[in-house]
C-alpha cells in the first residue's frame, strides 16, 4: 500500500477514535453536569418552596400551600409534581389532579438525620428526579418535588448530534489534510526512488534537487553526497585498476625475464654439469690415452731394464736413460693437464700473466699473433674478479682458436677507479651474434651466455660485437665496488630478446 494511503488511513483512524472518545467523554461530562445543575437548581427551588410554605403550613393554611405548589408546577421549572406531608404526619397536600399515586409516598424517604434526599425515578413520563427535604429543621413535615429530566435528555441528544457531526467533519478534514501531507512527503521520496533506480543502472551523473530544509531535504542532500562519493570512489577504483594493470604488465614482463633467466640458468647449470663431465672426460681421456699409456710403457721399460741389468748393464743403462726421458715427458703431460684445469699462474702472478700465457699457448701454436695492452691495472685485482675475467678471456680465446680462423688477436685490459674492462678482439670470420644466441643448446651460445652469467655474478656486463667477415670484439666490464644491479644491466639481446 502506498505511503500516502497509509498516512490517510492512520489519520482517519486516529481522528475517528479521538472523535468517539470525545463524544463519549463530552456526553458523560455534559450529562453529569446537567444532572448536577438540575439537582442543585431543584434543591434550591425546593428550599425556596419550603420556606414559602412553612408559615402557611404551620398556620394550617393548607389551601395557600396547595396554591404555592400548583404555581410552581405550572411555572415551567421542569417540575412534574410536588407534594407536602404536613407536620402532623398525616395530612398530604399534592398537585396530582387524578389522585395521588400511592407508590410515590415511599419512593424517596428522607433518612433520619439527613436534611434532604434525592432519588431518580423511572416513570411513564420519563425519568424524574424526586427531591425530598424537611420543610423545617426539627419538624416532621416533608416537601417532595419531582423534576423531569426530559429536557436533559433532549439537550444531551442535541449535544451528541453536534459532536458526531463535528467528528465526521473532522475526519473528512483530517483525511484531506493527511492526503495533502502525504503527497507533500511522498513526492520527493518518489524522485529519490527514480534516481536510485538510475544509479542502479550505473548512471551517477544526476542529482536530486534538495529544496526544503526538512528531513526530506536533508535526505536528498545526503543522497547527493552519496552519489558524489560514489563517483569519486569509482574514479579512484578505475585509476587503481589501470595502475594495477600496468603493474601487472610489468610484473608479467619481469616474470617472463625471470622465466627466461631460469631457463638460461638451467641451461648453464646443465652446461656446467656437462662441462664438468666433459672436463672430467677430457682429463680421464688424456690421462688414459696419454699419461696412462706413457706410464704403462714406462713400467714395461723398467721391467725390461731390470731384466737387462744382470745380463747387459750397458744396454740397461741406456734403457734407463730412455725411460728417464719418458718420465719427464709424462711429467710434462701431467703438468699440462693440471695447468689446463687451473693455471697456477693466475693464483701466483695474477690475471695479466695468466691471460698472456693462455692466449700464447692456445693461439700462437696455431699461428695467431697475440698482442696485449694493460693500462690502469698496477696491482692485483680481487680474486673473484681475476677468476671471472680469466675465464671469460679463456672462453673467448678458446672460441677464437676453434671458430674464428683469425690471424691477429688483441687483448686490452684497462682498470679504472671503480671498474675494470677487458676486451678481446680478433680479425677472424665473425658470426651472427643473434643467431648464435638463439641456438639454445649450441656450444657457442652457451659459451657466450656463460660469459654473460659469469660477468653478471659480479654485477658486470658483456658486450659482443661481431659481423660476418668483420671479426669479433668481446668486451666485459666488471665493477670493482660491491655488487650492483642484476640482469637489468645486461644487454637485452644476450637474453635472446
Amino acid at each position, binding site marked *: 500500500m502506498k505511503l500516502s494511503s497509509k498516512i490517510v488511513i492512520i489519520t482517519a483512524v486516529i481522528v475517528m*477514535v479521538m472523535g468517539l472518545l470525545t463524544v463519549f467523554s463530552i456526553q458523560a461530562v455534559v450529562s453529569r453536569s446537567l444532572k448536577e445543575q438540575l439537582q442543585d437548581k431543584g434543591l434550591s427551588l425546593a428550599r425556596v418552596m419550603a*420556606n414559602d410554605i*412553612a408559615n402557611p403550613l404551620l398556620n394550617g393554611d393548607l389551601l395557600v400551600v396547595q396554591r404555592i405548589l400548583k404555581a410552581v408546577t405550572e411555572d415551567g421549572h421542569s417540575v412534574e409534581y410536588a407534594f407536602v406531608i404536613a407536620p402532623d404526619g398525616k395530612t398530604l397536600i399534592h398537585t396530582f389532579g387524578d389522585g395521588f399515586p400511592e407508590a410515590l409516598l415511599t419512593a424517596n424517604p428522607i433518612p433520619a438525620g439527613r436534611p434532604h434526599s434525592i432519588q431518580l425515578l423511572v416513570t411513564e413520563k420519563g425519568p424524574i428526579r424526586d427531591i425530598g427535604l424537611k420543610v423545617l429543621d*426539627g*419538624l*416532621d413535615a416533608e416537601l417532595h418535588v419531582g423534576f423531569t429530566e426530559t429536557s436533559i435528555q433532549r439537550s444531551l441528544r442535541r449535544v451528541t448530534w453536534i459532536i458526531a457531526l463535528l467528528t465526521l467533519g473532522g475526519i473528512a478534514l483530517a483525511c484531506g489534510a493527511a492526503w495533502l501531507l502525504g503527497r507533500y512527503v511522498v513526492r520527493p521520496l518518489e524522485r529519490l526512488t527514480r534516481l536510485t533506480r538510475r544509479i542502479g543502472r550505473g548512471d551517477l551523473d544526476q542529482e536530486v534537487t534538495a529544496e526544503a530544509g526538512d528531513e526530506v531535504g536533508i535526505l536528498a542532500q545526503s543522497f547527493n553526497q552519496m552519489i558524489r562519493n560514489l563517483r569519486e570512489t569509482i574514479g579512484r577504483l578505475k585509476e587503481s585498476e589501470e595502475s594495477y594493470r600496468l603493474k601487472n604488465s610489468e610484473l608479467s614482463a619481469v616474470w617472463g625475464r625471470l622465466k627466461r633467466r631460469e631457463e638460461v640458468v638451467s641451461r648453464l647449470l646443465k652446461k656446467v654439469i656437462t662441462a664438468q663431465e666433459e672436463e672430467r672426460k677430457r682429463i680421464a681421456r688424456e690421462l688414459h690415452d696419454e699419461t696412462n699409456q706413457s706410464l704403462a710403457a714406462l713400467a714395461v721399460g723398467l721391467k725390461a731394464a731390470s731384466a737387462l741389468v744382470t745380463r747387459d748393464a750397458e744396454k740397461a743403462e741406456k734403457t734407463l736413460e730412455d725411460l728417464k726421458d719418458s718420465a719427464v715427458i709424462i711429467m710434462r703431460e701431467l703438468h699440462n693437464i693440471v695447468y689446463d684445469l687451473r693455471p697456477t699462474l693466475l693464483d701466483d702472478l695474477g690475471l695479466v700473466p695468466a691471460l698472456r700465457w693462455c692466449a700464447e699457448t692456445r693461439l700462437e701454436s696455431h699461428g695467431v699473433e697475440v698482442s696485449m695492452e694493460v693500462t690502469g691495472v698496477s696491482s692485483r685485482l680481487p680474486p673473484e674478479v681475476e677468476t671471472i675475467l680469466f675465464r671469460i678471456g679463456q672462453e673467448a680465446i678458446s672460441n677464437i682458436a676453434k671458430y674464428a680462423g683469425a690471424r691477429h688477436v688483441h687483448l686490452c685490459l684497462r682498470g679504472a677507479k671503480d671498474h675494470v674492462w677487458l676486451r678481446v678482439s680478433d680479425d677472424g670470420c665473425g658470426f651472427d651474434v643473434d643467431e648464435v644466441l638463439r641456438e639454445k643448446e649450441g656450444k657457442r651460445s652457451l659459451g657466450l651466455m656463460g660469459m654473460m652469467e659469469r660477468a653478471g655474478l659480479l654485477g658486470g656486463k658483456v658486450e659482443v660485437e661481431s659481423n660476418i667477415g668483420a671479426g669479433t670484439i668481446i668486451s666485459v666490464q666488471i665493477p670493482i665496488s660491491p655488487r650492483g644491479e642484476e640482469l637489468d644491466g645486461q644487454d637485452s639481446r644476450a637474453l635472446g630478446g
Partner: protein
Amino acid sequence: MAARIRAIIRLIPGRTFAAVFAIVVFFGTAGCVNLEKPKKVSLTQTPVSRVRVPDQVNGSGVLYFGFDRRLDPSEDVKMYAPFLRYLERETGYRFKLRVTLRNGNIVEDLGTGAVQFAAIGTLSYLEANKRYGVQALVRGVTGQKKGEYQALIITAPQSKIRSIGDLKGRSFAFGSKTSTQGHLIPRIMLKEAGIDIKDLSSYEYTGSHFETANAVVSGRFDAGGIQDTLGRELASRGLVRVIAVSGYFPSSNISVAPNVPPDVVARVKKALLEFDPQGKDKGGLYHWEQSEMPYGFIQAADRSFAGVRQWAEKLNLLNPPAEGRQGP
C-alpha cells in the same frame, strides 16, 4: 475491500490496537453507564384520593416540645430546633417539636399530654397551672440578666400620644391573647393608669408581638403592647416610640406536663439550668438572642408568680377559653 481492511489492520500493531479498543470501550461504557440506581414508580397506577400517610413519628420514647407563638411560626421552629438538639445531647432523650396551630392552644396541648414540655409565657403558665397542674421548671434569663421581663407600650413615632393617659378612647393592639408581654402586662399597665379595655375605642389580639408592631407602625392602631426586647429594638431604629415601660414580671418559663416521669423531669431540668447560650452552647443556635431566654435559665418556683396571678385573676384572664383565638 476486505483486503484493504486487512491491510489497514496490519498497519496497527496488535497490542496498540487492543489498547485503543479497550480505551474506547471503557470511555464508551463509562459514558453510558449510569452509576445511579433509579427506582421504577408508576405515576398513573393506583391513584388514590385519600392516602394514608404512614406514621413518620415513632411515638415511643419521644418527648414533644411546644411553644407559645411569638414570631413567625417558621422562625420559632428554626429557633427551637437546635435548642432541642442540645437537650437531646444532654439528656439522651429524643425530642420533637410540636407546633400549635393558630387555632390551637398550647395550654391544652400541655394539659392533654400532646406535649410534655413547653416554652410558654407567664399567662399561659398560670392558666395551665390552674387547669392542669402544669409546673414551671425554669425561667428564662432575659436581656437584663434576670428572670424577669418587661412590656412596652408603643406608638408610631409621629403619634401625638405621649403617655398612657392619652390612650383613653384610642385603639390598641395586643399580641396573642395568651401572651404575658403582649396582653397581660399591657392590661395591667392600662389598669394602673385607670384605663380599662372598654375605655379603648377598639382593640384587637394580633397574635404576635411582630403583628402588633406592624399594626402600630402601619397606623392601623394608635398603640400597642409589645415585648420589651422587640420594642426597644424597633424604637432604636426609629420605627416606634415607647410611651410606657412596665415593671418586672416573671419571664417566660419552660413548664412540664403533669404526667412526665420525675427522673425525666430532673434530667431535663438539669440540662436546662446548665444551658449556656452565650458561652459553650452558642454554636448551632439560631438567633437565640431574639428569644425570651437569651441568657439561659434559672430555677423557677410557683410562688414567684403570686403577684401576677392576682392580676390575671383580677382581669379574668384565667377563665377557660370560650371561643377560638383571634388571629390575622
